[in-house]
């Protein structure tokens, strides 16, 4: 059951996107999320789709796998679409009792669905092409640039590294404990919500105890190797930009310019942002 979660998962294949500096990918993703909100007509969205499509094609990750991440938020997208269809005012196309479907509502709903899908795919593409370790490395570098966060950059990224490192371990552990309790006749599938919640106790208690124990041991092991935070700590691998990163930044800039320019085209707009 835990094996189908793709958000935050790394997909290890060779590609130009995989080889980019993690900072480049973080900056691109950040810019992409913001710029999506600037797009206000179908040209803007088409550009957003085109750039993302280009990246997916470059990344050598099967489309099927990329779209798996959308499945997780399908319900959110559906709710957004339904709300937009019925709530947006405009020319009424159809009436169902007290509900009315408007033309503006339909357009809005479509754009919202596309925007959410692009957001999710755009961000999951970053995690799919960047190993967790590279990602936190990149984040540490990026945080060092922001004043105020600078002094915590190392601690924050170390916390993140450890958390990421232990997600698969915890999942494996949960899976194992669940199997062990199943072997003792526990039933996690049937029953109402209350019964199901109660049934989780035999999994959660051992999982928590195991985590605390592990955290304690890890802290001890780190101290035993003289870990004392980020002060004067040097790195084995320094992050360095190469030619491809520069190209990627230029592409990002072009994308920003094109999407902002598309705002001024006199085309069909999203009625209400």
């Amino acid at each position, binding site marked *: 059951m835990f094996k189908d979660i793709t958000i935050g998962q790394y997909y290890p294949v060779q590609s130009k996107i995989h080889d980019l500096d993690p900072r480049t990918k973080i900056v691109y993703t950040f810019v992409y999320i913001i710029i999506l909100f600037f797009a206000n007509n179908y040209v803007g969205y088409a550009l957003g789709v085109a750039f993302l499509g280009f990246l997916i094609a470059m990344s050598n990750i099967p489309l099927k796998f990329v779209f798996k991440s959308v499945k997780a938020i399908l319900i959110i997208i559906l709710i957004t679409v339904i709300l937009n269809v019925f709530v947006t005012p405009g020319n009424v196309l159809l009436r169902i009792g007290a509900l009315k479907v408007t033309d503006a509502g339909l357009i809005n709903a479509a754009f919202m669905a596309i925007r959410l899908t692009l957001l999710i795919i755009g961000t999951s593409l970053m995690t799919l092409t960047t190993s967790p370790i590279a990602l936190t490395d990149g984040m540490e570098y990026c945080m060092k640039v922001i004043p105020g966060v600078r002094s915590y950059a190392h601690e924050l990224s170390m916390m993140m590294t450890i958390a990421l490192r232990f997600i698969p371990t915890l999942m494996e552990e949960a899976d194992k404990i669940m*199997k062990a*309790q*199943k*072997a*003792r*006749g526990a039933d996690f599938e049937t029953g109402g919500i209350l019964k199901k919640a109660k049934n989780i106790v035999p999994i959660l208690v*051992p999982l928590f105890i195991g985590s605390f124990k592990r955290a304690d041991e890890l802290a001890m092991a780190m101290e035993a190797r003289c870990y004392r935070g980020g002060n004067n700590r040097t790195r084995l691998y320094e992050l360095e930009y190469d030619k491809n990163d520069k190209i990627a930044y230029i592409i990002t800039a072009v994308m920003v310019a094109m999407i902002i320019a598309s705002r001024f085209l006199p085309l069909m707009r999203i009625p209400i942002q």
Partner: protein
Amino acid sequence: MSVQLIDVSHIYAQGTPFEFAALKDIHFSIEKDEFIGIIGHTGSGKSTLIQHLNGLLTPTQGSVLVDGVEMSGAKGDKLALRRKVGLVFQYAEHQLFEETIYKDIAFGPKNLGLTEEEIENRVKDAMEVVGLDFDTYKERSPFELSGGQMRRVAIAGVLSMKPEILILDEPTAGLDPYGKEDILRSINQLHEKQQTTVVLVSHNMDEVATLADRVIVMSKGQILMDAPPAEVFTQVEKLDEIGLSAPDILYLMRALKKAGLDVDDKIFMPEEAKEDILRALKSGEGKPCLKI
């Protein structure tokens, strides 16, 4: 009861780059009253194999028959199967969760829907088998015990379901020698006195050699050998090849023979070895002083 695995294959994460075939065409059966030892290297598929025996995993291909009834897929009654086939996981003490030892051991029988009275009897019996005094320990928290005692509570938690087949995955891993011996003795008693069929997964050849009457050697997801211990452990070269070893005693007997003492180099049980060495020494053949 008997369990049959017919051409079972299991592939993890099929259709992703993490795809991994853990089992390939496994074919074997477990009959009543057997004591089977499964040995193999880490990653050889032992743990995957035993999880097929009580329906925790279903085969990607092939089928699992229990008493001739198909159990794999959605058809099988998993709960009924788990009632009959008890599985003790590796580091079983990590599954403990209740406030008291009594409650933890009673978790299984409670899930079976037994009466309070029957549950208490079963908990008592299970604690007796693993050597924990009922009155002393029943109200204590499992988390204040030593590692070995926690392991025994966890094993009792499976025994209280009165399984006809008991599967144990490395039950002695990480325990001190005394803890190991206690647990192995309990398992052996269970096999002899209550006719429980036992499947023991282990790294430790000496353990398997002394207890099991049938040994299955796994390598890379396949069954390499399936024979009585005497047959398996004398093929030392074949075991060496896949990174396993024979019981220590066997190596001792081989070394003695090589050094010129007239002993039987196919012996791997400590008691038999002692007899044979004494016999060889008394008969006076071979050199009085050995160079090994």
